[in-house]
Every structure is written in structure tokens, then in C-alpha cells.
């Protein structure tokens, strides 16, 4: 071995795919802006207790139906004798108004957002865990294992997610879920999270299975087998790393879907149970007083749109960053015949 000659440059250090992805994501200002928007909403919601105790001085479930508050030196009733709640005061108390029960909408909005986001996050976690397990096992082992797992996915896939979610939510709303080891009471936030998590499993497991099917015949898998590695080591050490970018791309997509489905189920009474707030339950409560008390649907509706839009646009950016070929393909499709698309960094 000869040492490099003095004065000659060493070859540039290689850039890992994650660094390249981060660079591409950093260039997508739209994605980052919407990601920041979602993050802002999430932080606000996590600060709900602080707002409730330090600013609004009321909890999310405290009723103030017959109380009055002073606004601009005038006493205003929180709800009128005919049950019409006060609108936004733009003051610390009832900043966004009250609902029919005289509860502070702003406080419930933040607590509701916390519940919605927590359920969305847990549901996404459940979806991804189950989908990765089922997808990789089905794709890697094939045969009977694949047949059984794929039919299981088919059964879940046969039902529209909302329909299945409502059916499960209603069925479990009163008695909760008792799986022996795991018990979820009817009011638990984990119950809708579990339902939503299960409902979406096929939507992730199927593509993952397909990807594993294409990977399992590749040389590096054969090489691992020849080296005597066990199935679990091949799955964890060879296949999973190659699935990571797909999994990461699915996360925001599933999170957005989970938040939306949670809102839908809660709207229909099959998700978060009263008196716990969620954006869906708030919409359901507000709709009957619309248009007279439009703030009751505008506030949770806007938060829902912002959160879902934020995570969706960020997810798009993330996908483009992790799967540059998608951009490449799109550019090729848009390019006039015979022109070359620009070279991709790192390609």
C-alpha cells in the first residue's frame, strides 16, 4: 500500500442518503412552512393546560351556563336564557366564545386538538407497527403466511375506513374493549386510536409487502442467507433499512388520515366520548347552533384544516426528498420530447 503523495487531494467524503434527503427537504420551503404550521398547532395544543390555567382560568369541561362575564365594562351572559352562547370576546376568558354548555371554546379547542393529535399519533404508530410486521412477514415468507396475512388485510380492506371505524366505535363505545391482556374502557382515548390504527393497516401493509416481494430475490438477501443469517436478522438487518424511506413517507400521510378519521368518528359519536373534547365532537356540538353561533364550527373546522393541510403538504415534501426518482419521473413526464432533465444531486 502506498501513502498518498503530499499535495494531492483526498477524495471527497461520501454524502449519505439521509443527508441528501435533508438537503432536498430544506430546499422545499413550502413543505417546511406547512410542516412548521403543523408543528405550531401541535405546540399550541400541547400548551392547552397552561392556557386553561393561566389565561382562561377554566378547564375544558367546566360549565358556566348561568354565569356572566364583564366585557368592556358590560356584564354579558355566557349563554342567553334561550340557550344561545356568547360569541368570541377576544379577551382572555371566552376568547373564542362559549359553547351551549357555557364552556370556553378556546380551551376546548386546544384540549380537543391535543386529543385529536394524540389519537392521530398513537393510531399512526399502531398502523405502522402492525403494517410493517404484517407487510414484511407476508412478503418475505410468502406461501401460506402470505396467504393468511393477505386475506386478513383483504377483510379489513373490504370495508370503507369510515364505515368500519364507525361500526367498531359504536360497538365498543359502551362496553369498551377487553382483549384479556389489554383492556380499554369506553371513555379511553386509546380506544379510537386503536380502532383507527387497525383500520388503516392494509393501506400501508400492502405496499410494504409488495416492496419486500421485490427485494427478497435480490442478491444482497441471497448473500445474507448464504452467510447463514437467520430470518429475523435478514428482516431487521437487510430488509427494514431498505423499507425505511417508504415507511417514513407513509408516516405523515397516515397521520393526516388518522386525524381526519378521528374527527369523523368523533363527529358521529363513535370516537372521543363526551365530555372530552376533540375537533370532531366540537363540530358535532356546534353544527346544531349554526349559523347562529357559527364560531362553534369555524374554530374547530379551521384547526382541523390547518393541521391536516400542514401535515399533508409536509408529507409531500418529505416524499419528494426521500424519493428523488418521483421528482425525476415527474420532470421527465413534463419535459419536451428529447430534452434531458437536470441531473439529480447524488445520482
Amino acid at each position, binding site marked *: 500500500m502506498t501513502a498518498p503523495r503530499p499535495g494531492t487531494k483526498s477524495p471527497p467524503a461520501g454524502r449519505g442518503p439521509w443527508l441528501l434527503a435533508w438537503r432536498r427537504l430544506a430546499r422545499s420551503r413550502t413543505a417546511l412552512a406547512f410542516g412548521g404550521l403543523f408543528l405550531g398547532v401541535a405546540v399550541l395544543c400541547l400548551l392547552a393546560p397552561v392556557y386553561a390555567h393561566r389565561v382562561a382560568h377554566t378547564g375544558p*369541561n*367546566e*360549565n358556566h*351556563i*348561568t354565569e356572566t362575564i364583564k366585557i368592556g365594562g358590560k356584564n354579558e351572559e355566557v*349563554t*342567553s*336564557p*334561550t*340557550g*344561545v352562547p356568547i360569541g368570541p370576546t377576544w379577551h382572555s376568558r371566552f376568547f373564542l366564545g362559549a359553547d*351551549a*354548555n*357555557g364552556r370556553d371554546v378556546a380551551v376546548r379547542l386546544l384540549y380537543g386538538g391535543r386529543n385529536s393529535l394524540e389519537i392521530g399519533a398513537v393510531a399512526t404508530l399502531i398502523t405502522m407497527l402492525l403494517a410493517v410486521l404484517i407487510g414484511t412477514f407476508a412478503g418475505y415468507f410468502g406461501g401460506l403466511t402470505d396467504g393468511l396475512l393477505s386475506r386478513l388485510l383483504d377483510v379489513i380492506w373490504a370495508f370503507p375506513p369510515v364505515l368500519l371505524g364507525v361500526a367498531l366505535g*359504536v360497538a365498543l*363505545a*359502551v362496553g369498551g374493549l377487553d382483549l384479556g391482556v389489554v383492556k380499554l374502557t*369506553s*371513555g379511553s382515548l386509546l380506544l379510537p386510536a386503536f380502532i383507527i390504527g387497525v383500520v388503516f393497516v392494509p393501506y400501508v401493509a400492502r405496499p410494504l409487502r409488495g416492496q419486500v416481494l421485490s427485494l427478497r430475490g435480490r442478491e444482497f438477501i441471497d448473500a445474507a442467507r448464504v452467510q447463514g443469517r437467520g430470518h429475523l436478522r435478514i428482516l431487521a438487518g437487510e430488509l427494514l433499512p431498505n423499507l425505511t424511506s417508504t415507511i417514513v413517507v407513509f408516516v405523515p400521510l397516515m397521520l393526516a388520515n388518522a386525524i381526519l378519521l378521528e374527527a369523523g368518528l368523533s363527529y358521529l*359519536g363513535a370516537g372521543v*366520548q*363526551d*365530555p372530552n373534547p376533540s375537533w370532531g365532537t366540537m363540530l358535532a*356540538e356546534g353544527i*346544531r*347552533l*349554526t*349559523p*347562529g*353561533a357559527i364560531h362553534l364550527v369555524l374554530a374547530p373546522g379551521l384547526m382541523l384544516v390547518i393541521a391536516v393541510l400542514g401535515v399533508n403538504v409536509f408529507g409531500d415534501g418529505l416524499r419528494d426528498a426521500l424519493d428523488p426518482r418521483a421528482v425525476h419521473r415527474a420532470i421527465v413526464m413534463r419535459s419536451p420530447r428529447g430534452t434531458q432533465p437536470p441531473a439529480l444531486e447524488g445520482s
Partner: protein
Amino acid sequence: MIKRSRPLGLFSLLALTLSLSISACGSSTSSSTNASNTGVNASSPSVTVLMGTAPDSLDPALGMSTQSYEATWLAYTGLVTYAHASGSAGAQLIPGLATALPTISADGKTYTFTLRKGLLYSNGQPVKASDFAYTLQRAIKLGWGNKQFLTGHIAGAEAFDKGKAHSISGITAADSSGVITVKLTAPFGPFLNVLAFPAAGLVPASTPLKPLPSEPPAGVGPYTIAHVVPNQSFEMAGNPHWASEAISGIPSGQAKVQIKIVTNNQSAAEQVLGNTADVFDWNDTVPGTLLAQVHARASARYAQEPTVSTEFFFLNTQAKPFSSQLAREAVNYALDRRALARLDGGQLTPACYLLPIGMPGHPAGPCPYGDPSAAPNTAKAKELITQSGMAGTAVDVWSEPHPPHKEYADYYASVLSAIGLKATVKIVATAQYPGTIGNLKGVNPQTGWIAFSQDFPNPVDFYQLLDAESIAPSENHNLSQVKDPHIQSELAALAPVPSSQLDSVVPKWQALDEYTAQKAYIAVLGYDDVPKFTSEHINFGALVFHPVYGNDWSTLQLK
């Protein structure tokens, strides 16, 4: 009845939202506004009524919701029925298919009727005296929710119900003479009221012994129920055989009635306000956000009618924490009934007694736990919970999603939590609610919302709710599971008093109701006012608001 779609009589849980939208067919109305016994026919104008909740069943042998009774009492006339009048006059019984009110034996146990001659069912079949026995047997066998009024009082009815007899031995009927005799096991004051239920409205003996909710059986009345689309709509068409047999005191009707189920009370109220539908569901609440508009634009066709009904939270005396009287008293001290009234759009009169205003026996004295229209005594309530040793006990509050009942539950749970209990809310779909909370084996609810409208104008009806004999493993009516010897002995003494003689025992009923309030077996919210609200096409003044059945469609007139 617990209101859901309020059944008369027994439990009609919750309020319903029915709105009838009478699509004001603008057809000529002049011919239809004249009276009387010409009856409704194919050329009659049509009126649209909106219902917020679909009837539980349009088969008279099964229906027991207010929505069901509102329709079936006009299609299934019994031997006796109620006068078609507003206020207390509407609570008077009049002969229906019988020639006169019955003769009652001196011991109060035997009732003898004579059937009118020449009556025909809506399908043209002749009405026979023996159909009466079949009608009651069918109601019992199909499981009518109020069948205990029959099986508990008619001789042989219980044996028939249990399959020990092929017929009800206490009923005899002679088709040739039309004489019908009913023997009771013991005198029962409101028995004639029981026979006025639509379930006792005669149907042909050839009617299948199976539920017929979509194709209700033939009956006798000014209307017949047709074109039933479950949970969507049905029609009250004219009975072609009614005009020839019109019975004094029962209007023949002047318009066909199209009933549409509109569950959104906001939408229903807007339709009636905008004259695209004709009658709003009296079981429903006009949203507070629309009331100002209603008063401004439709004050001549909107009124709040008092009803003989009570809304309350039952308190299960057989389970913690409400097995403790102190805990029950705490709830009564802590409830802010002014808040509950606001949740009901201002249509609830705060109160504390089970027997509502308008029911004989309603106490006039002050409430034992403070003025129900004043601020609650939360401090006292907390103290009582501490004394009871029930602090921290978990409580499930049951209700159904129809507004404002879910809002009641949310409010109630917040109150329970504020006084030291750990409350959670359980909301069950409206259709399943009565069955769920009446299921002692599976659910055995601790507390929850219920509304009860009179099935008939006798306090015995309300006291089913606290009668130990009403406790049943399923379809339980005594949701507080009260087993109080004093109440039982008083009911035994008061139940035999005929409805016509209630005045003589009013002080005793008042004393019993005050006793009940003292024991805090329930936490009464108040008494309902309901909206009588029509389009401008309807002659508002002519529409009778019946004290038992609500809007009397047989009195609907187009202007």
C-alpha cells in the same frame, strides 16, 4: 312514557325531533276547510309534518313512542278514546267504538261495553266484538312495552302471556250482540285510560301475529297509515270507510298528512319558518339561535304549549353512590336547573316534583332542597357527599345524543365531578337508549337522563317509575330501582281510585309526591314546554294541541 320519540305512557325516552314538513301543496284549499264528516280522500289537500325522530313502530301493538301514538291514535280507535280538544278537556274519555262509556260493577272489577253496529275497518272488513280480545292478545304476544297494564290487571291475561292459556279468560265478547265484558283481578282506577291506548284500538282477528311496522294493520279511525318508508316517511291517508261511520267527537280530518323524518331540528325549524314544511315536531326544540327569527317572523304561528311531562335524572338506589340518601340529596342540592332550562332553549320549567303541573296530585309546597329556580347550593352538596362517604366514587352518566340531552349529560357530569364524584358520560344512540338503560343485567346504570310524558291523565302512570313491581331485568321502568314500602302501600290504596274520582284523593297524591321528593329518589330537572309551530298555510288556531297526543292532525286545516 319515556320520551324518545315520546311513547305515551311508559317510557318515552328523550326527546325527539320530529318535524313534519307539510309540503304545502298549493292546491286549492277552499273545499277542504269545510267541516266535517266528509273525510279525507285522494283529492284532499296535503300537509307536511316533520318528525325529528321516527316512530318506534307504526304497528299499534308495538308502538309506544309519542311519535307512534301521535299517528296511531287517529288510525286505531279503541272502545274508548280521548276527546279531540286542547287542555284538560282533551283528557276526558269519550266512547270510541263502544256505544257509550262502560257500565262498571260495584266492586270496580267488571267493565261492560257494547260495540257500535255496522263498523268497518279501513280494509272494508266488518268489526266484530271478538276482535277486541284478539287485539289485546296480539299486543301482549308481540310484547307491547306497556303490556303490564293489561297483564297486571285483566283476569287471565298474565296466564295468557306466560303461555298457560290460549286466550284471556277475563274477556268475553259476543259478536251477535256486540257486548264485551272485561274482568279485572282487582279494581284499577285508570283502566279505561288503558283501553284508550292505540294498542287497544281494534284490529281484525285475521291480522297476522307478527310485527307489521311497514304495513300497519287495518284499523278504525279517520286515517289509515300508508306508504311507510322506515325512518324516512309515511302518510296518513283517509280511511275510505270512515265517512260513513263517523263517530261523534272524532273529527274526520281535512287533509292528507305526509310525515317526513328530519332529524336536524335546525333544518326542520327553518323549513317550517320558511313555509316549505307545515308542522314542526312538538317533541323537538326550536334552536335558540332561531327563536328570535321565529318570534319576529312567525309569532302568530308559534306558541309554547305546556305538557304533562317531567324530565329527571334517575338515581339508582341499589348501587353506589346513590344507594346513599345523602348522595342523592347532594345531587338535588347541586343541580342548577336554571342552567338546564337554558340548555333546553328556555323551554323547561325548573321543578323538583315527579308529578308535573297539570297532573292531579302535583304538590304546591316548596321544594325540599331549595328553590329550583334559584342558584344551587354546591357547598351543601359537597358536604353531603363527604358525609355519605361516597367521595371519589366513579359514576357513569347515561344519556342519548339528541339535543339537549347530551348537553344535559355533559352538564350533569360536570356537576357530579364538582361535588366530589368521578363522573364520566355514556351516550347511547337514541334508538338503543331505552333498551340499554333498562337492562339491569348488562348495564345496571347508576344515573342518567330520562323524560316521561303522561300516557294517561292519572298519577298512577308516573308512579310506575317508582313502583317496586316495575323493576324488571330488561325493559326496566323503575330505573332508580326504588323499593319503598311506603310508596307501595300508598299505591295499593290509590291505584284503584277511578280517574273520574281523582279529585277526592289529590291530597294523598300530593303527600306521596312530597315524600318522594324528600327521599330524593330522582333529581327532577323540570317540566317541558313544547313548541306548537306551523307554516303560514295552516290555520294555527284550529290545530288542537292534545294533552296526551300532542298535535291532533285530524284538526289540521289549510287556510
